[in-house]
C-alpha cells in the first residue's frame, strides 16, 4: 500500500513537470523584457516602446501597431517574445485592411535567432507591426511581448 502511494505521488510529479515543460511559459517580467530590448537596441537611441500583455485564448489574436519612419533616418526595431512563447511578429508596408500590402519581415524566418530579434526597416513613410498570439490549449495563461524602436543619432559627433 505504501509503495503504491509513493508510485502515485511520483507519477503525479512527472505529470505536472511534463505539463509545464511542454509549453515553456515564463511569468511576465516587463522590466527585464524592456532591459533586454534596450541592450539589443544599442547603439541606436531610444524612441518608443510597447508591451503587449495578454491571455492566450482558444482563438488566435492579433494587434497591429503603426510606425512612421522619416526619410533619411535609420531605425532599429527590437522584438522580444521571451515571455510570450509562440508569439510571432510580421511587419508590413500597409495596414491589415490593405489587401495588397507587402510582407517585409516575418519572425518565423528568424526562429534560430532566439526570442530577441532585430529588424532594420527601410520602407517609408509607414510600416505596420502585427503581433500574432497563437491559439492555445492553456487558456488564461498570461504572456507579454515587447517591442522597442530606436533611431540612429546622426547629428552628434
Amino acid at each position, binding site marked *: 500500500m505504501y509503495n503504491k502511494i509513493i508510485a502515485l505521488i511520483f*507519477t503525479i510529479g512527472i505529470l505536472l513537470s511534463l505539463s509545464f515543460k511542454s509549453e515553456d511559459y515564463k511569468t511576465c517580467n516587463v522590466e527585464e523584457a524592456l532591459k533586454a530590448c534596450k541592450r539589443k537596441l544599442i547603439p541606436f537611441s531610444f524612441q518608443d516602446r510597447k508591451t503587449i500583455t495578454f491571455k492566450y485564448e482558444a482563438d488566435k489574436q492579433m494587434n497591429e501597431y503603426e510606425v512612421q519612419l522619416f526619410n533619411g533616418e535609420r531605425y532599429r526595431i527590437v522584438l522580444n517574445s521571451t515571455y510570450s512563447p509562440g508569439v510571432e511578429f510580421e511587419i508590413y508596408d500597409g495596414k491589415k485592411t490593405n489587401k495588397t500590402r507587402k510582407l517585409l519581415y516575418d519572425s518565423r524566418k528568424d526562429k534560430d535567432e532566439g526570442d530577441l530579434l532585430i529588424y532594420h526597416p527601410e520602407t517609408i*513613410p509607414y510600416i505596420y507591426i502585427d503581433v500574432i498570439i497563437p491559439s492555445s490549449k492553456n487558456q488564461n495563461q498570461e504572456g507579454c511581448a515587447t517591442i522597442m524602436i530606436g533611431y540612429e543619432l546622426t*547629428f552628434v559627433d
Partner: protein
Amino acid sequence: MKNHISYPLTIIVLVFILFSCSDQSVEKKEQETKTEAIEPQDEVGTEDFYFFLPSPIQIAHILKRSGLLFSAEWINDPAKYDQYQTRTAGLLNLGVYTGDLAYCILNDRTEESLKYINSIKKLSDKLDMSEIYYSDNTMTRIESAVNNKDSLVNFIISTQENLSDYAYSSNQLSILMITFAGAWVETVYIGAHADNESPERVGETLSEEMGILKNLIDGLESTVQDNPEISTLTTQLKDFEQKMYSRDGENKPINFSSDQIEILKKEIAIIRNNITNN
C-alpha cells in the same frame, strides 16, 4: 515488486504519448489558422494606443536637416514656466519647452539650451514629475558638461525614456500624449516660421511632420477624457488636419504649395499660442 515499478512507468509512457499528440494537434491547428484572415474583433484588449511616437529631438532634426535656421523669435519664453496654472497647461508646455530645447541643441545654442533645461526642471517640479527629468544626477552631468552637445542630446533621449517608463508603469499614458502634443505643435510652429536656407524643401518637410497628426489626435482622444483643455486642443487639431491634408493616394507626404504653407503658418500659430499663452 514488478507491479510497483511497471505501474508508474506505464503511466509515464502514456502521459508522454498523450502530450506528444496534443502538441502536434495544436501545431497543426496553428498551421491551419495561419492563412485565415484575422478580423479586427480578434484584437487584444488594451487601453494603449496603436502606434509608436517619434522622439521630439528626431522631429526637430528632420526640420534642421531640411535647412531650418535658428531664430530666438519663434521659441517660447523660458521664464514663462511659472504662469502655467493647470496640470494640463503645465504638461503641454513641458512638451513645448522640450521642442524648444531640441531646436536650441541642434543649433548649438548651449546658453539657451541650459535656460530651457532649467525651466523644464522647475515646471516638472511643479507637476511633481521631477524624478523623470532629473534622475541619475542628470542636472549635475548637464552642468558639468555645458559645452558638450552629446550630454544635451542624451538629456532629451533619457528623459523621453524615463517619461515613457513613468507613463506606462503608472498607467498614465495621457502624460505621454499631452507632452508629445506640446512638443509637436512647437516644432511644427518653429519649422513653419523660422527662416530656412533651403526654402524649396519646407513644404515637403512640413508635410512629412504632418503625418504624425492623425495619430496624435487619436492618442489624445484615447488617453484623455473629460478634460476641456484637451478637448479644445483636439478640436483645433482636427480642424487643422482637415485644412492641411498632407497625403497622396499612396499615403505618402505631398509637397505643400506656398499658399498651403501660409495657411499652415496661420493655423499652427493659433494652436501654439493657445498653448503657450494659457
